[in-house]
């Protein structure tokens, strides 16, 4: 969790905002530091999480989360976090699964090429509020929706899936959905572009990360554009950022410590 980002977003761990669809997109740069922020933020706020991690392994997220002050392994053991490791599930699907064990694999739709219902069922089963935890805010985090396209899922299927997730998690359970989508500029990837535009349109909070137009710089790693789409009058605000080992510092454009 980056305190500076919380201040920018006006968020605190006491009462996280609900019914949000937060979209993180990255152009020509890595935006996963924002995802790690939300992961640790919602864990600290006591929400119950379902994390569909397609991009990296559990140990990767766990090492970073420890730097940010939360322990994913213990959160998983306590039942606060349900972690789906996409890389592991997919290799299991290819190499070790028998027809019987395959029925439990949330990624089994990749073999048949059908819709993403198994994954959706997995998520809703995880986030369904049970009797005692009615006050807890359920949160779904998906790391890199664009990987689904690489795995052969069509844009329409992904859009359907996200829509279902929003309907269940945001509306029905009063929770939040956080998605990361890697954008590829100048790559003529029409499918990814369409997906990005549609999800931008649906989002309530949009965090866009871009590399500097002038190229790589040691002291300014990129620009973050925050757009709140729920309030019509709000203008997007732009900050530059620098990533440190355990935190990220944000500053107004052109006000890096290196040039002052």
């Amino acid at each position: 969790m980056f305190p500076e980002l919380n201040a920018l977003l006006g968020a605190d761990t006491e009462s996280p905002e609900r019914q949000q669809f937060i979209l993180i997109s990255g152009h020509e740069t890595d935006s996963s530091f924002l995802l790690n922020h939300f992961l640790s933020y919602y864990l600290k706020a006591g929400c119950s999480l379902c994390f569909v991690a397609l991009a990296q392994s559990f140990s990767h997220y766990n090492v970073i989360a420890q730097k940010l002050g939360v322990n994913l392994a213990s959160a998983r053991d306590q039942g606060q976090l349900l972690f789906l490791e996409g890389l592991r599930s997919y290799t299991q699907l290819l190499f070790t699964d028998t027809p019987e064990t395959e029925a439990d694999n949330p990624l089994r739709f990749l073999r048949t090429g059908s819709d993403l219902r198994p994954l959706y069922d997995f998520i809703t089963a995880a986030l369904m509020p049970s009797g005692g935890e009615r006050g807890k805010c359920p949160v779904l985090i998906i790391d890199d929706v664009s990987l689904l396209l690489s795995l052969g899922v069509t844009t329409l299927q992904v859009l359907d899936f996200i829509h279902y997730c929003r309907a269940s998690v945001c509306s029905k359970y009063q929770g939040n959905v956080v998605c990361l989508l890697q954008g590829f500029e100048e790559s003529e990837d029409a499918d990814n572009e369409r997906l990005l535009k549609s999800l931008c349109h649906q989002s309530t909070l949009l965090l866009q990360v871009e590399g500097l137009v002038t190229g790589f710089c040691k002291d300014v790693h990129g620009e973050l554009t925050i757009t709140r789409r729920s309030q019509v009058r709000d203008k997007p605000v732009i900050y530059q950022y620098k990533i440190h080992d355990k935190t990220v510092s944000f500053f107004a454009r052109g006000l890096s410590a290196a040039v002052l």
Partner: protein
Amino acid sequence: MEERGLISAEEDDYGTYSNLLLKYFLAEGVISGHEVFIASASNIPHSIFKDLPAPLTDEIAKQDDTSKLMESPGSAEDTMKIAWRYQNLPKLESVSLPSARFGHYYDISKTMSPDMLQSAKTHSFYLPNIIPLGGTYDSSSEMPCDYLQLLQSIQSVIHQQGFDGSNPQQKGQKNILRIGIQSLASVLWGDDICARERPHNLHSLTRFLYALRGLLRSSLSVCVITMPTHLIKNKAIIARVRNLSDTVVGLESFIGSERESNPLYKDYHGLFLVHKIPRLNSLISDASDTKDLAFKLKRKMFSIERLHLPPDLSDTVSRSSKQDLAGSTKLLSSGCGSAAAGKKHLDF
């Protein structure tokens, strides 16, 4: 080199330098006693092994280093009057071989001795041996059978040799598997993404890479892939491949390009482009301060050097306070002699 990482090298137009890079990677594995896996659809793996560069023995390498160090300090101080910023460069960094981080240098004019090759534990995958020529493909399967078979071959090596920690007998001695895949996605792999703009198997390559990434993450292995990206028509695939790799470097050879005659590049044979650097287990990546690198092929070695220095813009530059600035100009004026005489400020 990052363990459990996937490194993809985008080939230069004729594949000369990328093959060399792959050989360096494999040779380093043989020298370090790692197990080596090589997959190819065009060259017989055995011949690739026979062609690995011979290592320079330690004594010679050390002598080279020390002699470089010996001669450089004295001469550099005298000569660098104009390009004074280059003086502060660490001397050895400017000549860094891709595999020299562990202290091995190679002589590419010689091949590795057979004894050394025999001592190495190697595995190979040669596509024409697996699938007979003229065999028919089942186009309905999710991945072309070639990729699936390559995956299964890698998986069985990882599993049988205990790199995934499944084999408890070998727990004491941890070893690393180095996987090298040559010219993945070329037509010889039975993939049509190089041939058509809208290929039949649009997702086969990315699915393969995703599964490979999964295998690497759960085992002690590292993989280098060379890929002829300039042949892939559909640019969307390249972007997705880059997204799936941990490290992406590109080799841009000057052979046949206008840059060959450009005086800026006259000392080099090509540009070494860094597209992506790994961010494994950390928020930040280990970034060096420059990404403008060029390579050249000498008679005996392949070297990657920095092309030029980055623009100076950091916390510690002399511009941060006026006094420092004055001090540095004094130094400058003494260095530059009569041209910059007087205590005038030099503005850059």
